[in-house]
């Protein structure tokens, strides 16, 4: 539905014309349960006349039963979601809400702000142009404010609106607002947020949400709604470099071969020289075909069909770029990862990586460091659990165009899918190669620590002695175990009689050594005669023992 406007009754055609030309702005609301987030959204909907009478009657009814606002209508009840959440009194997922004013159509991604919902916040943030960060005026900048701001910066949201809420509870104090504003600016310095707006509001009473506040005459800036309507988002997209991931090849008959896709960046015109990646073959754009006729140009984020002058082999997953701006393809790149599954990351395990229209087997080949979402502190880690964020290295089986996320959202983002459960287990943002280029750090001693090597291989360097079996059995167990470890992404090697003098240097390289020699130099000794069952079961048991010894 839409806002109220006199034009609707007096001149519907003029109203439709106005509505037809609106821009779309997507925004995220970040706040914890007590920050008044649902009340703010309810207020935006209510004050922009987005609530039908039957809905209002329903929440007036509900306010008396379960509301928490006393005399006022509990606007938060407008936006509560599923039954389970209503009973718990909190929102637990991403909910999308819609409203419009005479200037813009808005989509709100409403997400919970607690730390255990980092995954939901990242999900909501991924499509947004702007983030509203709610701060309770009584409490000021809190741990959660840092967390929300970090995720906003990580997901590349270009505009931030800090709403200092509950001003009614601090006597509408200008001093308090200024203090919080300075605190926020100070802490946000390191985050790289480019465009920060502030507004003192009371979502409950309606001050400065849509209408200017009579209680804060000292505030002459925009109301929250005015910022939402006016913030300039035209320059946010990348129109400089073409990225056209081929989504679908359209061959309705022998005379037509079109490449369907959505421009994730850039502008394309007929006659443009384009190169297909990864093949590197080039051609010229013949036409931009749409149901509504051929176009003179197409730009992000339009969905179109391109035809080329030459018949070259192109399929889904290929990407068309301008021939004078060909990016490199990579099968190894760094990225920020938000882990989204209850099952922790297994470094080295094979997952499916979906990046624009490609689905490629790959793995997290190294975890450089974890990032604490509250303090932004970096620390080494061997694994990642639900809602944890880290900087990692991704390794794919085949190279793809993986752009810097900050420059190309579409070709710089990916999801990781568990190939067994089909669950989406992580979301990633590519860190551009350029970031490091030209800044090679020089070293005159080894900067590679034992820990760094252990992280890369997901194992502790160690010598494991498996003795007490006949040589045939030992052969089977050693080489099966080696293969199993390798399949997990580890770096094992089998050393036989006479090769043990190399053990120290191989350990220094970070490898996991397996031998059938009974030696006192072993870090872990297992008597094979103590094992029972089939050889396969024995290998399973060995894997357990190695894990129990914390070597993997």
């Amino acid at each position, binding site marked *: 539905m839409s806002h109220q406007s006199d034009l609707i009754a007096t001149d519907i055609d003029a109203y439709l014309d106005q509505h037809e030309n609106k821009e*779309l702005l997507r925004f995220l609301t970040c706040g914890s349960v007590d920050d008044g987030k649902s009340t703010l959204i309810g207020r935006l909907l209510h004050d922009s006349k987005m609530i039908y009478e039957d809905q209002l009657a329903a929440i007036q009814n509900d306010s008396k039963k379960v509301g928490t606002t006393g005399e006022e209508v509990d606007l938060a009840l407008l936006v509560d979601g*599923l039954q389970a959440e209503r009973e718990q009194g909190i929102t637990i997922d991403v909910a999308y809400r819609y409203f419009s004013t005479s200037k813009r159509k808005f989509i709100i991604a409403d997400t919970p702000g607690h730390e255990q919902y980092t995954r939901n916040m990242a999900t909501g943030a991924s499509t947004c142009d702007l983030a509203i960060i709610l701060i309770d005026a009584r409490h000021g900048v809190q741990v959660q404010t840092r967390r929300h701001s970090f995720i906003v910066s990580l997901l590349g949201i270009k505009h931030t609106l800090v709403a200092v809420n509950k001003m009614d509870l601090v006597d509408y104090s200008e001093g308090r607002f200024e203090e919080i504003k300075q605190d926020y600016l100070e802490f946000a310095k390191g985050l790289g947020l480019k465009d920060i707006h502030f507004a003192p509001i009371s979502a409950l009473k309606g001050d400065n949400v849509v209408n200017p506040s009579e209680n804060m005459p000292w505030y002459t800036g925009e109301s929250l709604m005015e910022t939402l309507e006016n913030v300039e988002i035209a320059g946010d997209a990348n129109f400089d470099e073409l990225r056209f991931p081929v989504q679908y090849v359209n061959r309705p008959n022998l005379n037509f071969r079109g490449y369907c896709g959505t421009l994730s960046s850039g502008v394309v015109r007929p006659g443009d020289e384009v190169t297909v990646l990864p093949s590197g073959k080039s051609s010229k754009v013949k036409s931009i075909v749409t*149901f509504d006729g051929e176009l003179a140009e197409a730009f992000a984020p339009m969905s179109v069909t391109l035809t080329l002058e030459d018949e070259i082999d192109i399929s*889904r997953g290929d990407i068309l770029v301008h021939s004078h701006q060909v990016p490199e393809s990579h099968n190894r790149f760094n990225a920020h990862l938000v882990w989204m599954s209850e099952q922790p990351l297994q470094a080295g395990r094979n997952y499916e990586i979906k990046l624009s229209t490609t689905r490629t087997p790959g793995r997290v080949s190294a975890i450089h460091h974890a990032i604490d979402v509250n303090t932004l502190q970096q620390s080494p880690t061997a694994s990642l659990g639900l809602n944890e964020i880290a900087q990692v290295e991704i390794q794919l089986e085949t190279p793809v165009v993986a752009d810097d996320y900050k420059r190309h959202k579409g070709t710089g983002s990916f999801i990781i899918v568990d*190939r067994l459960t089909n669950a989406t287990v992580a*979301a990633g943002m590519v860190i551009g190669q350029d970031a490091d280029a030209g800044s090679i750090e020089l070293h005159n001693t080894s900067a590679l620590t034992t820990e760094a090597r252990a992280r890369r291989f997901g194992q502790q360097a160690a010598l494991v002695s498996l003795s007490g079996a006949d040589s045939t059995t030992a052969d089977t167990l050693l080489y099966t175990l080696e293969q199993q470890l390798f399949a997990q992404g580890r770096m094992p090697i089998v050393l036989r009689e006479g090769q043990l003098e190399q053990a120290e240097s191989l350990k220094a390289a970070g490898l996991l050594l397996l031998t059938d020699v009974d030696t006192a130099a072993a870090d872990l000794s297992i008597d094979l005669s103590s094992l029972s069952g089939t050889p396969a079961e024995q290998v399973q048991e060995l894997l357990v023992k190695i894990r129990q010894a914390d070597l993997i």
Partner: protein
Amino acid sequence: MGSRALINRKSHTMNQLPEHRLTHLKQLEAESIHIIREVAAEFDNPVMLYSIGKDSSVMLHLARKAFYPGKPPFPLLHVDTTWKFKEMIQFRDRMAEEAGMDLIVHINQEGVDMGIGPFSHGSAKHTDVMKTQSLKQALDKYQFDAAFGGARRDEEKSRAKERVFSFRDKHHRWDPKNQRPELWNTYNTRVDKGESIRVFPLSNWTELDIWQYIHLEQIPIVPLYFSAVRPVVERDGMLIMVDDERLPLADGEVPMMKPIRFRTLGCYPLTGAVESQADTLPEIIQEMLLTTTSERQGRAIDHDSAGSMEQKKMEGYF
């Protein structure tokens, strides 16, 4: 380079969009086409659920745009409860022919044999057997691994959290607590055999967007959306159109002839008409915008309780 210069020179006149900006409708259109193509590219056996309503009309139009100059590479499926308005059925057959797409019509024959209907069994039972169960039967019969639906998130609270690609298990059940995270426009399309995805390309459209787009694109819709004088009777405070002789009339009851139209379309005994003179799209939109009750009030199914739609979805209702 040239494009960036144009962007920076853009005008700020209200509602005059600068170059390289899409209107919200064009942006929604592009996103929906992206979603529809993604399904065609990633699934073995997709289908488009076609309910003949205005949202389905927009969805079908977008599908035709997505694959132009070809035809959409999937069939249409209509789950026919046998109680749809006659005009809906005529319209359905005409649209399928015009689009050059295969149309599968599925009717729950067990339900027909048991004589299930809204008058004899009530709306809840009728909807469950002839719609929810029937849909599951059809999906099982044809082994579809993806099914497009025209639902919008702004329709109802429980839909606000629905994914665009919504996973269903082997029993077609939706688990609101175990949904896949959905980021950017990167959709996880993996399913095992027997499992499926419901895909909602109109997720981010509002009712006004739908009407505005129908108006701009001149998309055909069932004439029942426009006002005309039609025979109606009053039942439980709703105006019900007498579409055929199955509607029980009281002794001596004569249907009233009134200028009416419909805001939503479904089974005729369960769909309330509104008295209206609106017989053009701008008038319909005007009436909708000036109305003070939300869209789904015309449907009997939601009246039970606020959580009823969520319950139905978990059972496999679309």
